[in-house]
């Protein structure tokens, strides 16, 4: 399969996914995928920077400074959201898979999971924001 056809297939798939008028379940799934990509990106970066310790500790130290920049620390907030949403929504899907009779409460299960996500996310976000503000002073 050529690169062009892979790109074309990805384009068709993204268009279908974006334009299909699915319900709440589809939106929850799209967000699940996006947050999964977010977590994957962080893990990839993490693996690369840990690898650099063995390669050249000085390069590692220089790069670590980047993580402490305010912009990158805002990225921590995004990372927290990605991890929390992916975990909570994943638990919701596992629950529905184990108890198919709960399918009628699919909409409610998404609403509950969003509340749980917010309860876990908002305090984390406030703590990170507070630390960023303190570091700027």
């Amino acid at each position, binding site marked *: 399969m050529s690169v062009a056809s892979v790109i074309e297939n990805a384009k068709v*798939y993204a268009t*279908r*996914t974006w*334009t*299909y*008028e*699915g*319900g709440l*379940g*589809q939106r929850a*799934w799209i967000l699940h995928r996006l947050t999964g990509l977010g977590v994957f990106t962080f893990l990839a970066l993490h693996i690369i920077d840990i690898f650099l310790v063995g390669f050249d500790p000085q390069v590692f130290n220089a790069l670590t400074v980047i993580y402490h920049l305010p912009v990158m620390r805002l990225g921590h907030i995004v990372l927290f959201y990605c991890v929390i949403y992916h975990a909570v929504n994943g638990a919701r*899907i596992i629950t*529905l*898979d*184990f*108890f*198919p*009779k709960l*399918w009628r409460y*699919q909409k409610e299960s998404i609403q509950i999971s969003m509340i749980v996500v917010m309860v876990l996310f908002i305090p984390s976000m406030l703590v990170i924001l507070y630390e960023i503000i303190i570091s700027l002073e």
Partner: protein
Amino acid sequence: MEKSKVTLKIKRFNPEVDKTPHWENYAIEVEPTDRILDGLNYIKWYQDGTLSFRRSCAHGICGSDAMRINGRNRLACKVLFKEMGATISVEPIAGLPVLKDLIVDMELFMEHYRAVLPYLINDDPPPPTERYQSPADRARFDDTTKCILCACCTTSCPSFWAKEDYLGPAAIVQAHRFIFDSRDQAADKRLEILSDSDGVWRCRTIFNCTDACPRNIEVTRAIGEVKQEMLFRKM
């Protein structure tokens, strides 16, 4: 009943002329209780005879007029204009090759259907009367007997869009209908087919299939029950 003007925005594709599909608008007058199928028939009969689409019973039983209406899979014969607004988009169901306009090639879908052995398998000699089944045993798979193979579910599934080898919700619903039939003896065979990487585990519990089913089959629940059966039967 007073008629109103609506615009049907239809995705057209003629493989003999077009390289890619394009949209065409048709303005028609309809009664609020007319169905989308009535509008399509009007266009074909009085405005543009080249418009192609499948329809047969026109009463939600044969499943031949499945299409994507206002972004979602539905049967054109079961949707009224009053439910859809003044401008309505109509396009073929996604994930299957378009032959012309709203007609798709259903072969892949039928191939997946045939793969799950959708017929009763019982090697015991037939009894003098019918093979007895209690009302409770019959109720176990009642919901999945309602499938009309319209493909609304399978072609609304992002997992199927991503990988056409995925058997899809309709085939799993058909498998469910026989796996839980107390008279059938090939449940293990079907579960083995469904345990493949393109089988039941490719379902991501998105619920598009359940939302799209014009027969109101609890598709995601049926898939969940097959997953459970697969898991607990082995345990």
